[in-house]
C-alpha cells in the first residue's frame, strides 16, 4: 500500500500550475490473488432434479455421476472441477483514493475477476466524509457488512485461508448502494465502532440465481434479485488480543424470474433478518477465528439458515498452518418436516507462508460434505475434495 503517487503527483502538480486548483492527494493501492486448483474425483448425485412422482427412467435418472464441483465463489459462480483452473478465484483489484481536502474523500475499486474473464468493473465507489474525529459518513457502493469477513472477503491477503468458507458466504447479493454512519469511541483500552447502514440492491441478471435456475432445469432469460430497505448495524469491539463484531440487519426480498418470452414468474416477497457474532482471538502462538450467524425469513415456510465457522491458526514465524470447519443448515420451522433441506459442512486445512512482506503463498485442501438427504432434492452440491494453491498480495 505504498503510495504509488509520484507520477500522478507530477501530473497533478502540473495541472495545478496550469489551473491553479488545489491538487487532490491521490493514493493508488491494490490487492489480488492468483489461485489455481481442481477437484480430485467424481461424485454420484442422487436425484438432483429427480421427479419422485415418476418411476426412474433414462429421462428421469435417480442418480448421475459427474466430476466433483466445488463452488468457491457463489456470488460470481466460481467453481472448480476436475480441470485445473485459474479462473474461479483469481482476482486483481486497484483502489484509488482521492483526498479532496476539507475531510472529503472519494474511493473507487476497479476489480477484475477470472469468473468475468478479467473484464474490470468498478465494484466499489463511495464518498467518505469525516464529519468529526469520531464520526465518519459514507455514501455509495460497498459490500454489505454481513458476515465477519464479508467486507474484505476478496482481500485474500487479509486472512489465513484461500477464502472465507464458501459454504457460508453463499448469498446471491453481497453489495449494495447506500449510506453508512460510523461512530468510533473508546471504553478504557477497548476500541469500539458502531456503524449503521441503509441501502438497496437491484441485482438485475443475477449470476447465481440464473445458475440455480439452470441447475433445476429452468430456462429463464434472466433472474433479477431485489434486496430493498437493507438496514441494520454493526458493533465492533477490539482490544489488545481480540476483535469481535456483532451484526443485525433486515431487508425485503423480491425476485423476477424472466422467461424467454418476457413473462415474469410469480414470487411472494418476504423479509429476512440477519444476525451474527464473529471475531478473532490472538492467544500466544494461536489465532482463533469464529463466526456464528442466523438468517430468518418471514415466509410461509419459516425458513432459517443457521451457520457457523470455527478455525485455528498456528503462528510459527512466517508459517501459518490452519484448520477450519464451517457448517451450514437450512430449516423450515413452519413445515412438518423442519430439518431435511440443504445441509453441508466444509473441513479445510492448509498453510499460509508469508514469503514476502506484501505477499503470501497458500495451499489448501477442502473436504466438502453434502449432508442433505437425497429425497429432499437439496443435495445439489455433492461431496468434493479440492486442492487449491495461490499467492495473495497487496501493494
Amino acid at each position, binding site marked *: *500500500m*505504498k*503510495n504509488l503517487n509520484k507520477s500522478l503527483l507530477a501530473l497533478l502538480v502540473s495541472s495545478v500550475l496550469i489551473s491553479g486548483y488545489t491538487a487532490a492527494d491521490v493514493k493508488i*493501492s491494490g*490487492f489480488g490473488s492468483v489461485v489455481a486448483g481442481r477437484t480430485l474425483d467424481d461424485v454420484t448425485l442422487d436425484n438432483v432434479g429427480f421427479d419422485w412422482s415418476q418411476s426412474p427412467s433414462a429421462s428421469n435418472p435417480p442418480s448421475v455421476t459427474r466430476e466433483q464441483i466445488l463452488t468457491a465463489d457463489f456470488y460470481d459462480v466460481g467453481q472448480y472441477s476436475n480441470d485445473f483452473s485459474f479462473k474461479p478465484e483469481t482476482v486483481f*483489484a486497484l*483502489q484509488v*483514493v482521492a483526498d479532496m481536502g476539507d475531510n472529503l474523500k472519494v*474511493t473507487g*475499486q476497479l476489480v477484475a475477476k477470472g469468473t468475468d474473464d478479467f473484464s474490470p468493473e468498478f465494484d466499489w465507489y*463511495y464518498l*467518505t466524509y469525516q464529519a468529526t*474525529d469520531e464520526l465518519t459518513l*459514507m455514501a455509495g457502493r*460497498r*459490500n454489505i457488512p454481513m458476515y465477519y469477513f464479508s*467486507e*474484505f472477503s476478496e*482481500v485474500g*491477503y*487479509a*486472512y489465513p485461508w484461500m477464502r472465507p468458507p464458501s459454504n457460508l458466504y453463499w448469498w446471491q447479493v453481497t453489495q449494495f448502494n447506500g449510506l453508512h454512519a*460510523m461512530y*468510533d469511541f*473508546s471504553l478504557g*483500552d477497548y*476500541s469500539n*465502532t458502531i456503524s449503521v447502514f441503509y441501502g438497496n440492491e437491484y441485482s438485475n441478471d443475477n449470476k447465481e440465481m440464473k445458475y440455480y435456475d439452470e441447475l433445476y432445469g429452468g430456462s429463464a432469460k434472466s433472474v433479477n434479485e431485489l434486496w430493498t430497505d437493507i438496514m441494520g448495524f454493526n458493533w465492533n469491539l*477490539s482490544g*489488545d488480543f481480540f476483535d469481535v463484531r456483532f451484526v443485525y440487519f433486515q431487508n425485503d426480498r423480491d425476485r423476477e424470474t424472466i422467461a424467454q418470452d418476457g413473462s415474469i414468474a410469480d414470487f411472494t416477497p418476504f423479509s429476512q433478518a440477519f444476525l451474527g457474532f464473529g471475531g478473532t482471538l*490472538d492467544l500466544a502462538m494461536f489465532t482463533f477465528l469464529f463466526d456464528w450467524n442466523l438468517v430468518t425469513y418471514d415466509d410461509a415456510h419459516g425458513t432459517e439458515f443457521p451457520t457457523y465457522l470455527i478455525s485455528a491458526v498456528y*503462528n510459527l*514465524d*512466517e508459517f501459518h498452518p490452519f484448520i477450519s470447519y464451517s457448517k451450514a443448515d437450512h430449516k423450515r420451522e413452519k413445515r412438518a418436516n423442519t430439518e431435511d433441506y440443504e445441509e453441508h459442512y466444509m473441513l479445510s486445512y492448509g498453510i499460509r507462508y*508469508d514469503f514476502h*512482506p*506484501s505477499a*503470501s503463498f497458500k495451499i489448501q485442501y477442502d473436504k466438502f460434505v453434502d449432508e442433505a438427504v437425497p429425497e429432499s432434492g437439496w443435495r445439489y452440491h455433492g461431496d468434493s475434495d479440492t486442492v487449491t494453491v495461490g499467492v495473495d498480495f*497487496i501493494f
Partner: protein
Amino acid sequence: MFKHYNKKQLSIIFTSLLVGMLSTHSVSAEIAVIVNSANGSALDKNSIERIFMGKMKKFPNGQVALPMNAAKGMNSRDEFNKSVIGRSSSQVNAYWSKLVFTGKGSMPNELSSDAEIIATISSNQGAIGYIDSGSVTDAVKVIAKF
C-alpha cells in the same frame, strides 16, 4: 560421517542448531520510539501500539497523532512490529489490508530511512516514529526504547 560422532556429540550439535534457529530473530538492534521535541506526552507500550494500529488517533494532550512507518523491508520495522505490536510485519500488513480496502483506515505513511524519519518528526508536532537507537539525534525526543 556420522559414525565418528557419539550420541552426546550429536545431541550437542542438534541443540546448538536448535538454539541457532531460535535465536536468529533475537539478534536485534534496540529500537527508539521518537516524537517531536515539543511533544510532552508520556506513552506506555500499549498506547504506542494502539497509535500504530490506528486505534488511538490522538496523544493524551489532544494533538492528532501521525504515525510514521519505516519502509517495508527495513529492519527497524520488523523489530518494532515484533517487540511493540507483538506480530510479524506480514501479520501487521494483513491487519491493515482489511481496513485499507474497506475504507476504514489508512496505513501509516512510510519513510525510507532513519534520517528521513527524524527530519519528518522534527518538523511535525504530532508525528511519531521509530528508528534504530544508534541513529537518534538531538532533533527529536525519545519516549521509549524496546
